[in-house]
Protein backbone atom coordinates (compact mmCIF):
# COMPACT_ATOMS: atom_id res chain seq x y z
CA UNK A 1 0.00 0.00 0.00
CA UNK A 2 1.26 3.42 -0.86
CA UNK A 3 0.75 6.12 1.69
CA UNK A 4 -0.41 9.52 0.53
CA UNK A 5 2.59 11.75 0.07
CA UNK A 6 1.69 14.30 2.72
CA UNK A 7 1.11 11.58 5.26
CA UNK A 8 4.39 9.81 4.62
CA UNK A 9 6.25 13.12 4.64
CA UNK A 10 4.59 13.99 7.91
CA UNK A 11 5.58 10.64 9.33
CA UNK A 12 9.14 11.11 8.15
CA UNK A 13 9.63 14.41 9.91
CA UNK A 14 7.10 13.95 12.71
CA UNK A 15 5.68 17.42 13.02
CA UNK A 16 4.13 18.47 16.26
CA UNK A 17 0.95 20.50 16.21
CA UNK A 18 2.82 23.64 17.11
CA UNK A 19 5.33 23.13 14.34
CA UNK A 20 2.63 22.54 11.77
CA UNK A 21 1.05 25.81 12.87
CA UNK A 22 4.30 27.75 12.62
CA UNK A 23 4.94 26.27 9.19
CA UNK A 24 1.48 27.27 8.05
CA UNK A 25 2.03 30.82 9.31
CA UNK A 26 5.40 30.94 7.59
CA UNK A 27 3.81 29.77 4.34
CA UNK A 28 1.16 32.49 4.59
CA UNK A 29 3.79 35.16 5.19
CA UNK A 30 5.74 33.80 2.25
CA UNK A 31 2.73 34.13 -0.05
CA UNK A 32 2.00 37.64 1.23
CA UNK A 33 5.58 38.72 0.67
CA UNK A 34 5.54 37.17 -2.80
CA UNK A 35 2.61 39.43 -3.72
CA UNK A 36 4.48 42.66 -2.96
CA UNK A 37 5.62 43.28 -6.58
CA UNK A 38 2.02 42.97 -7.78
CA UNK A 39 0.77 45.80 -5.62
CA UNK A 40 3.72 48.09 -5.85
CA UNK A 41 6.80 48.82 -7.84
CA UNK A 42 9.49 51.42 -7.62
CA UNK A 43 10.53 52.61 -4.20
CA UNK A 44 8.66 50.11 -2.03
CA UNK A 45 9.80 47.20 -4.18
CA UNK A 46 13.41 48.34 -3.98
CA UNK A 47 13.25 48.52 -0.18
CA UNK A 48 11.60 45.09 -0.04
CA UNK A 49 14.32 43.76 -2.32
CA UNK A 50 17.01 45.16 -0.03
CA UNK A 51 15.36 43.57 2.95
CA UNK A 52 15.24 40.18 1.23
CA UNK A 53 18.83 40.52 0.09
CA UNK A 54 20.13 41.18 3.59
CA UNK A 55 17.78 38.64 5.14
CA UNK A 56 19.24 35.94 2.91
CA UNK A 57 22.78 36.92 3.86
CA UNK A 58 22.21 37.53 7.58
CA UNK A 59 20.13 34.38 8.07
CA UNK A 60 22.61 32.15 6.28
CA UNK A 61 25.41 33.76 8.31
CA UNK A 62 23.50 32.95 11.48
CA UNK A 63 23.06 29.30 10.51
CA UNK A 64 26.73 28.82 11.29
CA UNK A 65 27.70 31.66 13.59
CA UNK A 66 24.59 31.61 15.78
CA UNK A 67 25.01 28.21 17.40
CA UNK A 68 28.81 28.04 17.28
CA UNK A 69 29.63 31.63 18.32
CA UNK A 70 32.26 31.74 15.60
CA UNK A 71 32.02 35.25 14.22
CA UNK A 72 32.80 35.05 10.52
CA UNK A 73 33.74 38.18 8.58
CA UNK A 74 34.14 36.19 5.37
CA UNK A 75 30.64 36.73 3.96
CA UNK A 76 32.06 39.01 1.28
CA UNK A 77 34.51 36.34 0.15
CA UNK A 78 31.71 33.89 -0.68
CA UNK A 79 29.33 36.55 -1.92
CA UNK A 80 32.05 37.86 -4.25
CA UNK A 81 32.91 34.39 -5.52
CA UNK A 82 29.28 33.86 -6.45
CA UNK A 83 29.23 37.18 -8.24
CA UNK A 84 32.40 36.48 -10.15
CA UNK A 85 31.30 33.03 -11.31
CA UNK A 86 28.32 34.74 -12.93
CA UNK A 87 30.38 37.62 -14.30
CA UNK A 88 32.90 35.32 -15.93
CA UNK A 89 30.46 32.81 -17.28
CA UNK A 90 27.59 34.99 -18.41
CA UNK A 91 28.76 35.06 -22.04
CA UNK A 92 29.27 31.29 -22.12
CA UNK A 93 26.50 29.64 -20.14
CA UNK A 94 22.85 30.08 -19.21
CA UNK A 95 22.26 32.01 -16.01
CA UNK A 96 20.57 29.22 -13.98
CA UNK A 97 23.56 26.96 -14.61
CA UNK A 98 25.84 29.73 -13.37
CA UNK A 99 23.86 30.01 -10.15
CA UNK A 100 24.49 26.32 -9.59
CA UNK A 101 28.18 26.73 -10.39
CA UNK A 102 28.37 29.69 -8.00
CA UNK A 103 26.92 27.49 -5.27
CA UNK A 104 29.49 24.79 -5.99
CA UNK A 105 32.36 27.29 -6.04
CA UNK A 106 31.23 28.78 -2.73
CA UNK A 107 30.90 25.32 -1.20
CA UNK A 108 34.34 24.26 -2.45
CA UNK A 109 35.99 27.37 -1.04
CA UNK A 110 34.16 26.84 2.26
CA UNK A 111 35.38 23.25 2.54
CA UNK A 112 38.99 24.32 2.09
CA UNK A 113 38.69 27.30 4.41
CA UNK A 114 36.68 25.35 6.95
CA UNK A 115 39.14 22.50 7.18
CA UNK A 116 42.02 24.93 7.50
CA UNK A 117 40.55 27.32 10.03
CA UNK A 118 37.82 25.82 12.14
CA UNK A 119 40.41 24.38 14.45
CA UNK A 120 41.29 27.90 15.50
CA UNK A 121 38.65 29.61 17.51
CA UNK A 122 37.76 32.92 19.07
CA UNK A 123 39.41 36.05 17.83
CA UNK A 124 41.83 34.14 15.58
CA UNK A 125 38.95 32.86 13.51
CA UNK A 126 37.48 36.37 13.22
CA UNK A 127 40.74 37.81 11.97
CA UNK A 128 41.32 34.92 9.61
CA UNK A 129 37.89 35.23 8.07
CA UNK A 130 38.41 38.95 7.50
CA UNK A 131 41.80 38.25 5.94
CA UNK A 132 40.28 35.59 3.72
CA UNK A 133 37.90 38.02 2.05
CA UNK A 134 40.79 40.38 1.42
CA UNK A 135 42.96 37.56 0.07
CA UNK A 136 40.31 36.41 -2.37
CA UNK A 137 39.82 39.98 -3.51
CA UNK A 138 43.53 40.40 -4.19
CA UNK A 139 43.64 37.14 -6.10
CA UNK A 140 40.70 38.23 -8.24
CA UNK A 141 42.30 41.58 -8.97
CA UNK A 142 45.50 39.84 -9.94
CA UNK A 143 43.68 37.28 -12.11
CA UNK A 144 41.87 40.02 -13.97
CA UNK A 145 45.15 41.76 -14.54
CA UNK A 146 46.78 38.57 -15.82
CA UNK A 147 43.82 37.75 -18.04
CA UNK A 148 44.05 41.24 -19.43
CA UNK A 149 40.45 42.19 -18.89
CA UNK A 150 39.28 45.53 -17.60
CA UNK A 151 39.19 46.26 -13.90
CA UNK A 152 35.59 45.04 -13.91
CA UNK A 153 33.17 42.85 -15.80
CA UNK A 154 29.74 43.55 -17.19
CA UNK A 155 26.83 41.29 -16.31
CA UNK A 156 24.01 42.13 -18.63
CA UNK A 157 21.01 39.85 -18.76
CA UNK A 158 17.36 40.40 -19.32
CA UNK A 159 15.77 40.28 -15.89
CA UNK A 160 13.13 42.49 -14.35
CA UNK A 161 13.22 43.88 -10.83
CA UNK A 162 10.25 41.68 -10.01
CA UNK A 163 12.06 38.55 -11.12
CA UNK A 164 15.09 39.46 -9.01
CA UNK A 165 12.79 39.98 -6.05
CA UNK A 166 11.15 36.57 -6.49
CA UNK A 167 14.49 34.87 -6.90
CA UNK A 168 15.69 36.39 -3.63
CA UNK A 169 12.46 35.38 -1.96
CA UNK A 170 12.82 31.80 -3.14
CA UNK A 171 16.40 31.71 -1.88
CA UNK A 172 15.34 33.14 1.47
CA UNK A 173 12.61 30.54 1.76
CA UNK A 174 15.11 27.77 1.07
CA UNK A 175 17.48 29.19 3.68
CA UNK A 176 14.70 29.27 6.26
CA UNK A 177 13.60 25.73 5.44
CA UNK A 178 17.14 24.40 5.67
CA UNK A 179 17.71 26.36 8.87
CA UNK A 180 14.51 24.99 10.35
CA UNK A 181 15.48 21.47 9.35
CA UNK A 182 18.97 21.85 10.84
CA UNK A 183 17.49 23.25 14.02
CA UNK A 184 15.54 20.06 14.66
CA UNK A 185 18.24 17.69 13.40
CA UNK A 186 21.08 15.99 15.21
CA UNK A 187 23.46 18.31 13.40
CA UNK A 188 21.76 21.34 14.91
CA UNK A 189 21.86 19.80 18.37
CA UNK A 190 25.55 18.99 17.91
CA UNK A 191 26.23 22.60 16.95
CA UNK A 192 24.44 23.90 20.02
CA UNK A 193 26.49 21.60 22.23
CA UNK A 194 29.67 22.75 20.51
CA UNK A 195 28.70 26.38 21.02
CA UNK A 196 28.17 25.73 24.72
CA UNK A 197 31.24 23.67 25.50
CA UNK A 198 33.43 22.10 22.89
CA UNK A 199 35.14 19.79 25.40
CA UNK A 200 31.82 18.28 26.42
CA UNK A 201 30.90 17.99 22.74
CA UNK A 202 34.03 16.02 21.93
CA UNK A 203 33.64 13.68 24.88
CA UNK A 204 30.00 13.13 23.99
CA UNK A 205 31.17 11.62 20.72
CA UNK A 206 30.64 14.60 18.40
CA UNK A 207 33.07 14.97 15.53
CA UNK A 208 33.24 18.71 16.08
CA UNK A 209 35.41 19.51 13.08
CA UNK A 210 33.03 17.75 10.70
CA UNK A 211 29.91 19.34 12.20
CA UNK A 212 31.42 22.81 11.96
CA UNK A 213 32.66 22.34 8.40
CA UNK A 214 29.26 21.06 7.23
CA UNK A 215 27.49 24.07 8.71
CA UNK A 216 30.11 26.49 7.43
CA UNK A 217 29.72 25.07 3.93
CA UNK A 218 25.93 25.35 4.01
CA UNK A 219 26.12 28.91 5.29
CA UNK A 220 28.78 29.98 2.77
CA UNK A 221 27.03 28.34 -0.17
CA UNK A 222 24.00 30.53 0.42
CA UNK A 223 26.21 33.63 0.51
CA UNK A 224 27.66 32.60 -2.86
CA UNK A 225 24.18 32.08 -4.35
CA UNK A 226 23.13 35.50 -3.06
CA UNK A 227 26.14 36.94 -4.88
CA UNK A 228 25.14 35.10 -8.06
CA UNK A 229 21.62 36.52 -7.86
CA UNK A 230 22.87 40.03 -7.16
CA UNK A 231 25.41 40.15 -10.01
CA UNK A 232 23.01 41.11 -12.83
CA UNK A 233 21.39 43.74 -10.64
CA UNK A 234 24.77 45.43 -10.06
CA UNK A 235 25.55 44.89 -13.77
CA UNK A 236 29.18 45.97 -13.36
CA UNK A 237 31.29 43.73 -11.14
CA UNK A 238 34.71 44.64 -9.84
CA UNK A 239 36.73 43.26 -6.92
CA UNK A 240 36.37 46.25 -4.59
CA UNK A 241 32.60 46.03 -4.84
CA UNK A 242 32.17 42.27 -4.90
CA UNK A 243 34.50 41.62 -1.98
CA UNK A 244 33.69 44.71 0.05
CA UNK A 245 34.48 44.11 3.74
CA UNK A 246 31.69 46.58 4.49
CA UNK A 247 29.17 43.94 3.40
CA UNK A 248 30.61 41.39 5.84
CA UNK A 249 30.32 43.85 8.70
CA UNK A 250 26.81 44.88 7.73
CA UNK A 251 25.65 41.27 7.76
CA UNK A 252 27.15 40.62 11.18
CA UNK A 253 25.68 43.78 12.65
CA UNK A 254 22.22 43.10 11.27
CA UNK A 255 22.26 39.53 12.56
CA UNK A 256 23.42 40.63 16.01
CA UNK A 257 20.87 43.44 16.08
CA UNK A 258 18.11 40.93 15.45
CA UNK A 259 19.41 38.07 17.55
CA UNK A 260 21.27 34.95 16.51
CA UNK A 261 19.64 32.30 18.67
CA UNK A 262 16.43 32.17 16.70
CA UNK A 263 16.08 31.40 13.03
CA UNK A 264 13.91 34.46 12.48
CA UNK A 265 16.15 36.64 14.68
CA UNK A 266 18.24 38.20 11.90
CA UNK A 267 15.06 39.22 10.08
CA UNK A 268 14.18 41.46 13.02
CA UNK A 269 17.54 43.11 12.63
CA UNK A 270 17.47 43.42 8.86
CA UNK A 271 14.15 45.23 8.66
CA UNK A 272 14.91 48.15 11.01
CA UNK A 273 18.47 48.32 9.76
CA UNK A 274 17.48 48.56 6.11
CA UNK A 275 14.85 51.19 6.82
CA UNK A 276 17.30 53.15 8.94
CA UNK A 277 19.91 52.88 6.23
CA UNK A 278 17.41 54.22 3.68
CA UNK A 279 16.55 57.08 5.98
CA UNK A 280 20.15 57.99 6.65
CA UNK A 281 21.33 57.75 3.07
CA UNK A 282 18.34 59.71 1.78
CA UNK A 283 18.60 62.56 4.27
CA UNK A 284 22.30 62.69 5.11
CA UNK A 285 24.09 61.30 2.06
CA UNK A 286 27.39 62.82 3.13
CA UNK A 287 27.33 61.54 6.70
CA UNK A 288 26.11 57.95 6.23
CA UNK A 289 29.11 56.25 7.76
CA UNK A 290 29.20 58.61 10.72
CA UNK A 291 25.52 58.18 11.53
CA UNK A 292 25.72 54.48 10.98
CA UNK A 293 28.60 54.21 13.42
CA UNK A 294 26.68 56.17 16.03
CA UNK A 295 23.68 53.88 15.49
CA UNK A 296 25.83 50.79 16.02
CA UNK A 297 27.08 52.16 19.31
CA UNK A 298 23.55 52.82 20.48
CA UNK A 299 22.46 49.32 19.46
CA UNK A 300 25.32 47.69 21.33
CA UNK A 301 24.66 49.75 24.46
CA UNK A 302 20.89 49.56 24.51
CA UNK A 303 20.01 46.17 23.08
CA UNK A 304 23.01 43.88 23.49
CA UNK A 305 20.84 40.76 23.12
CA UNK A 306 19.18 41.96 19.95
CA UNK A 307 15.56 42.54 19.19
CA UNK A 308 14.77 38.89 19.92
CA UNK A 309 16.34 39.29 23.36
CA UNK A 310 14.13 42.32 24.02
CA UNK A 311 11.01 40.44 22.95
CA UNK A 312 11.82 37.38 25.01
CA UNK A 313 12.64 39.48 28.06
CA UNK A 314 9.34 41.25 27.71
CA UNK A 315 7.48 37.95 27.39
CA UNK A 316 9.27 36.46 30.38
CA UNK A 317 8.61 39.59 32.40
CA UNK A 318 4.95 39.43 31.57
CA UNK A 319 4.73 35.74 32.44
CA UNK A 320 6.51 36.34 35.72
CA UNK A 321 4.23 39.22 36.60
CA UNK A 322 1.20 37.08 35.82
CA UNK A 323 2.62 34.20 37.82
CA UNK A 324 3.46 36.28 40.84
CA UNK A 325 0.10 37.99 40.64
CA UNK A 326 -1.49 34.56 40.60
CA UNK A 327 0.71 33.46 43.47
CA UNK A 328 -0.24 36.58 45.39
CA UNK A 329 -3.91 35.77 45.06
CA UNK A 330 -3.36 32.15 45.98
CA UNK A 331 -1.22 32.88 49.00
CA UNK A 332 -3.17 35.94 49.96
CA UNK A 333 -0.18 38.12 50.65
CA UNK A 334 3.50 38.75 50.27
CA UNK A 335 4.62 41.51 47.97
CA UNK A 336 7.94 39.89 47.23
CA UNK A 337 6.96 38.49 43.79
CA UNK A 338 6.02 41.67 41.93
CA UNK A 339 8.67 43.69 43.72
CA UNK A 340 11.26 41.13 42.78
CA UNK A 341 10.25 41.13 39.15
CA UNK A 342 10.23 44.91 39.05
CA UNK A 343 13.69 44.87 40.57
CA UNK A 344 14.82 42.27 38.06
CA UNK A 345 13.41 44.38 35.27
CA UNK A 346 15.20 47.45 36.56
CA UNK A 347 18.41 45.48 36.91
CA UNK A 348 18.22 43.95 33.45
CA UNK A 349 17.63 47.37 31.99
CA UNK A 350 20.70 48.70 33.70
CA UNK A 351 22.84 45.63 33.10
Amino acid sequence: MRQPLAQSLGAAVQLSGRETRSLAIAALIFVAVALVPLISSGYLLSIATSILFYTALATSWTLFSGPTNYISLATAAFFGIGMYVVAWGIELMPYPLLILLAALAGAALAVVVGLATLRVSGVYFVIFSLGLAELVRQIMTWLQHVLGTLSGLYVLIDRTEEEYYWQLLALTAVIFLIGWWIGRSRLGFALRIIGNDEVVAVHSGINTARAKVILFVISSTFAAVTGALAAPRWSYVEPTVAFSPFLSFQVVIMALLGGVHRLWGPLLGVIPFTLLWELISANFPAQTTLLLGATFLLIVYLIPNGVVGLLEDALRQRRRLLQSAGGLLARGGGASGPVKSLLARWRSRNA
Partner: protein
Amino acid sequence: MPSADKTALQVGDVTKRFGGLIAVQNLSFALAENEVLGLIGPNGSGKTTMMNLISGALRPTSGEIRLYGDDIAGVGASRIANKGIARTFQLVRMLPGLTVLENVSAGGVFGHTRRWGKELDDYAQALLQRVGLPNAGDVAVTALTYIDQKRVELARALASDPKVLLLDEWLAGLNPTELKTGIALIEQLRVEGRTIVIVEHVMHAIRSLCDRCIVMSSGVKIAEGTPREVLADAEVIRAYLGDADA
Protein backbone atom coordinates in the same frame (compact mmCIF):
# COMPACT_ATOMS: atom_id res chain seq x y z
CA MET B 1 44.81 -15.82 27.80
CA PRO B 2 41.84 -17.55 29.39
CA SER B 3 40.41 -15.77 32.36
CA ALA B 4 37.18 -15.96 34.28
CA ASP B 5 36.42 -12.25 33.82
CA LYS B 6 36.40 -10.43 30.55
CA THR B 7 38.91 -7.59 30.42
CA ALA B 8 37.16 -4.33 29.61
CA LEU B 9 40.14 -2.02 29.64
CA GLN B 10 43.76 -2.97 29.33
CA VAL B 11 46.40 -0.29 29.92
CA GLY B 12 49.84 -1.47 28.85
CA ASP B 13 53.07 0.34 29.62
CA VAL B 14 51.60 3.78 29.05
CA THR B 15 53.87 6.81 29.33
CA LYS B 16 52.91 10.45 28.95
CA ARG B 17 55.50 13.20 28.82
CA PHE B 18 54.89 16.93 28.82
CA GLY B 19 58.26 18.13 27.57
CA GLY B 20 60.66 17.13 30.32
CA LEU B 21 57.95 16.24 32.81
CA ILE B 22 56.84 12.63 32.94
CA ALA B 23 53.26 12.70 34.15
CA VAL B 24 52.61 8.99 33.72
CA GLN B 25 55.42 6.47 33.49
CA ASN B 26 55.12 2.88 32.23
CA LEU B 27 51.76 2.39 33.83
CA SER B 28 49.96 -0.92 33.30
CA PHE B 29 46.71 -2.17 34.72
CA ALA B 30 43.61 -4.03 33.69
CA LEU B 31 39.98 -3.39 34.40
CA ALA B 32 37.61 -6.34 34.33
CA GLU B 33 34.04 -6.09 33.12
CA ASN B 34 31.65 -5.08 35.93
CA GLU B 35 34.58 -4.00 38.09
CA VAL B 36 34.92 -0.71 39.92
CA LEU B 37 38.53 0.36 39.98
CA GLY B 38 39.85 3.21 42.12
CA LEU B 39 42.73 5.32 40.90
CA ILE B 40 44.19 7.09 43.90
CA GLY B 41 47.30 8.95 44.89
CA PRO B 42 48.46 12.34 46.13
CA ASN B 43 47.93 15.52 44.12
CA GLY B 44 50.02 15.63 40.98
CA SER B 45 50.54 11.89 40.86
CA GLY B 46 49.13 11.61 37.33
CA LYS B 47 45.62 10.29 37.99
CA THR B 48 43.76 12.88 35.96
CA THR B 49 46.37 12.62 33.21
CA MET B 50 45.66 8.89 33.10
CA MET B 51 41.93 9.59 32.82
CA ASN B 52 42.63 12.04 30.00
CA LEU B 53 44.71 9.42 28.22
CA ILE B 54 41.93 6.84 28.43
CA SER B 55 39.23 9.27 27.31
CA GLY B 56 41.37 10.59 24.47
CA ALA B 57 41.71 14.17 25.71
CA LEU B 58 45.47 13.49 25.62
CA ARG B 59 47.53 11.14 23.46
CA PRO B 60 49.96 8.84 25.22
CA THR B 61 53.62 9.28 24.35
CA SER B 62 53.95 5.51 24.25
CA GLY B 63 52.12 2.38 25.31
CA GLU B 64 48.75 0.90 24.48
CA ILE B 65 45.25 1.25 25.81
CA ARG B 66 42.75 -1.39 24.74
CA LEU B 67 39.00 -1.29 25.10
CA TYR B 68 37.80 -4.87 24.74
CA GLY B 69 40.90 -5.61 22.70
CA ASP B 70 40.53 -2.57 20.44
CA ASP B 71 43.57 -0.27 20.65
CA ILE B 72 42.34 3.23 21.41
CA ALA B 73 45.66 4.87 22.35
CA GLY B 74 45.98 8.13 20.42
CA VAL B 75 42.52 7.89 18.88
CA GLY B 76 40.55 11.16 19.02
CA ALA B 77 38.31 11.80 22.01
CA SER B 78 35.08 11.79 20.00
CA ARG B 79 35.92 8.40 18.43
CA ILE B 80 36.71 7.00 21.87
CA ALA B 81 33.35 8.25 23.10
CA ASN B 82 31.76 6.49 20.11
CA LYS B 83 33.52 3.29 21.05
CA GLY B 84 32.02 3.35 24.52
CA ILE B 85 33.98 5.37 27.06
CA ALA B 86 32.14 8.17 28.81
CA ARG B 87 33.47 10.53 31.44
CA THR B 88 32.72 13.28 33.90
CA PHE B 89 35.06 16.17 34.58
CA GLN B 90 37.09 17.16 37.60
CA LEU B 91 35.42 20.58 37.50
CA VAL B 92 31.82 20.01 36.55
CA ARG B 93 31.04 21.03 32.97
CA MET B 94 27.51 22.09 32.12
CA LEU B 95 26.04 23.30 28.85
CA PRO B 96 24.64 26.56 30.22
CA GLY B 97 22.47 27.41 27.20
CA LEU B 98 20.62 24.10 27.33
CA THR B 99 17.97 22.82 29.70
CA VAL B 100 18.69 20.04 32.17
CA LEU B 101 17.00 17.47 29.94
CA GLU B 102 18.99 18.65 26.91
CA ASN B 103 22.19 18.48 28.95
CA VAL B 104 21.48 14.83 29.62
CA SER B 105 20.33 14.14 26.06
CA ALA B 106 23.59 15.61 24.76
CA GLY B 107 25.34 12.49 25.97
CA GLY B 108 22.97 10.09 24.24
CA VAL B 109 22.89 11.28 20.63
CA PHE B 110 26.40 10.87 19.29
CA GLY B 111 28.05 8.44 21.66
CA HIS B 112 28.25 4.70 21.97
CA THR B 113 24.50 4.02 21.94
CA ARG B 114 22.55 6.57 19.94
CA ARG B 115 19.00 7.69 20.42
CA TRP B 116 16.92 10.50 19.00
CA GLY B 117 13.46 11.99 19.19
CA LYS B 118 10.98 10.68 21.69
CA GLU B 119 13.09 7.67 22.52
CA LEU B 120 15.93 9.99 23.55
CA ASP B 121 13.65 12.23 25.60
CA ASP B 122 12.20 9.27 27.46
CA TYR B 123 15.62 7.80 28.07
CA ALA B 124 17.06 11.09 29.32
CA GLN B 125 14.05 11.59 31.55
CA ALA B 126 14.50 8.10 33.00
CA LEU B 127 18.16 8.89 33.70
CA LEU B 128 17.20 12.11 35.46
CA GLN B 129 14.90 10.06 37.61
CA ARG B 130 17.74 7.64 38.29
CA VAL B 131 20.10 10.36 39.49
CA GLY B 132 17.43 11.96 41.62
CA LEU B 133 16.22 14.89 39.52
CA PRO B 134 12.88 13.65 38.21
CA ASN B 135 11.28 17.10 37.93
CA ALA B 136 14.18 19.21 36.76
CA GLY B 137 13.99 18.55 33.00
CA ASP B 138 12.94 22.04 31.94
CA VAL B 139 15.06 23.92 34.45
CA ALA B 140 18.06 25.98 33.33
CA VAL B 141 21.22 24.24 34.51
CA THR B 142 22.59 27.48 35.89
CA ALA B 143 19.81 27.39 38.48
CA LEU B 144 20.98 24.05 39.88
CA THR B 145 23.02 23.51 43.02
CA TYR B 146 26.47 21.99 42.74
CA ILE B 147 25.43 18.45 43.62
CA ASP B 148 22.53 18.66 41.18
CA GLN B 149 24.90 19.77 38.43
CA LYS B 150 27.02 16.74 39.28
CA ARG B 151 23.95 14.57 38.97
CA VAL B 152 23.22 16.01 35.55
CA GLU B 153 26.78 15.38 34.47
CA LEU B 154 26.56 11.78 35.65
CA ALA B 155 23.28 11.29 33.81
CA ARG B 156 24.88 12.76 30.65
CA ALA B 157 27.76 10.30 30.91
CA LEU B 158 25.31 7.42 31.37
CA ALA B 159 23.17 8.53 28.45
CA SER B 160 25.37 6.82 25.88
CA ASP B 161 25.21 3.54 27.80
CA PRO B 162 29.01 3.43 27.98
CA LYS B 163 31.04 0.26 28.26
CA VAL B 164 33.42 2.02 30.63
CA LEU B 165 32.59 5.03 32.77
CA LEU B 166 35.32 7.38 34.03
CA LEU B 167 34.49 9.44 37.10
CA ASP B 168 37.11 12.09 37.72
CA GLU B 169 36.76 13.29 41.33
CA TRP B 170 33.04 13.16 41.00
CA LEU B 171 32.61 13.44 44.77
CA ALA B 172 34.94 16.40 45.23
CA GLY B 173 33.46 19.58 46.65
CA LEU B 174 30.34 17.99 48.11
CA ASN B 175 29.26 18.66 51.67
CA PRO B 176 28.84 15.68 54.04
CA THR B 177 25.12 15.17 53.29
CA GLU B 178 25.66 15.49 49.56
CA LEU B 179 28.60 13.14 49.82
CA LYS B 180 26.35 10.46 51.27
CA THR B 181 23.91 10.91 48.40
CA GLY B 182 26.75 10.86 45.90
CA ILE B 183 28.24 7.65 47.25
CA ALA B 184 24.81 6.01 47.25
CA LEU B 185 24.39 6.96 43.58
CA ILE B 186 27.68 5.40 42.54
CA GLU B 187 26.93 2.38 44.71
CA GLN B 188 23.79 1.93 42.63
CA LEU B 189 25.81 1.95 39.42
CA ARG B 190 28.10 -0.64 40.95
CA VAL B 191 25.21 -2.87 41.85
CA GLU B 192 23.96 -2.54 38.28
CA GLY B 193 27.22 -4.02 37.11
CA ARG B 194 28.73 -0.98 35.42
CA THR B 195 32.43 -0.96 34.62
CA ILE B 196 33.89 2.13 36.26
CA VAL B 197 37.20 3.83 36.90
CA ILE B 198 37.07 6.29 39.79
CA VAL B 199 39.64 8.93 40.60
CA GLU B 200 38.93 10.07 44.10
CA HIS B 201 40.37 11.67 47.20
CA VAL B 202 37.54 10.74 49.51
CA MET B 203 38.98 7.64 51.16
CA HIS B 204 35.88 6.22 52.73
CA ALA B 205 34.21 6.41 49.32
CA ILE B 206 37.10 4.43 47.86
CA ARG B 207 36.77 1.85 50.63
CA SER B 208 33.08 1.32 50.14
CA LEU B 209 32.90 1.58 46.37
CA CYS B 210 36.00 0.05 44.83
CA ASP B 211 36.72 -3.59 44.18
CA ARG B 212 40.33 -2.81 43.57
CA CYS B 213 42.68 0.15 43.73
CA ILE B 214 45.71 1.38 41.85
CA VAL B 215 47.86 3.80 43.82
CA MET B 216 49.92 6.27 41.82
CA SER B 217 52.69 8.53 42.97
CA SER B 218 54.76 10.79 40.71
CA GLY B 219 53.41 9.06 37.62
CA VAL B 220 54.19 5.47 38.59
CA LYS B 221 52.11 2.73 40.13
CA ILE B 222 53.26 2.06 43.67
CA ALA B 223 50.58 -0.36 44.80
CA GLU B 224 47.64 -2.39 43.58
CA GLY B 225 45.06 -4.46 45.42
CA THR B 226 41.87 -4.22 47.42
CA PRO B 227 41.32 -0.86 49.13
CA ARG B 228 42.07 -2.42 52.51
CA GLU B 229 45.37 -3.85 51.30
CA VAL B 230 46.67 -0.77 49.53
CA LEU B 231 45.69 1.66 52.24
CA ALA B 232 47.71 -0.40 54.72
CA ASP B 233 50.73 -0.51 52.41
CA ALA B 234 53.77 1.21 53.89
CA GLU B 235 54.78 2.81 50.61
CA VAL B 236 51.31 4.20 50.04
CA ILE B 237 51.28 5.73 53.50
CA ARG B 238 54.66 7.25 52.81
CA ALA B 239 53.46 8.68 49.48
CA TYR B 240 50.51 10.35 51.16
CA LEU B 241 52.05 11.40 54.46
CA GLY B 242 55.77 11.50 53.87
CA ASP B 243 58.44 9.50 55.71
CA ALA B 244 57.79 8.47 59.28
CA ASP B 245 60.77 10.44 60.48
CA ALA B 246 60.05 13.49 58.38
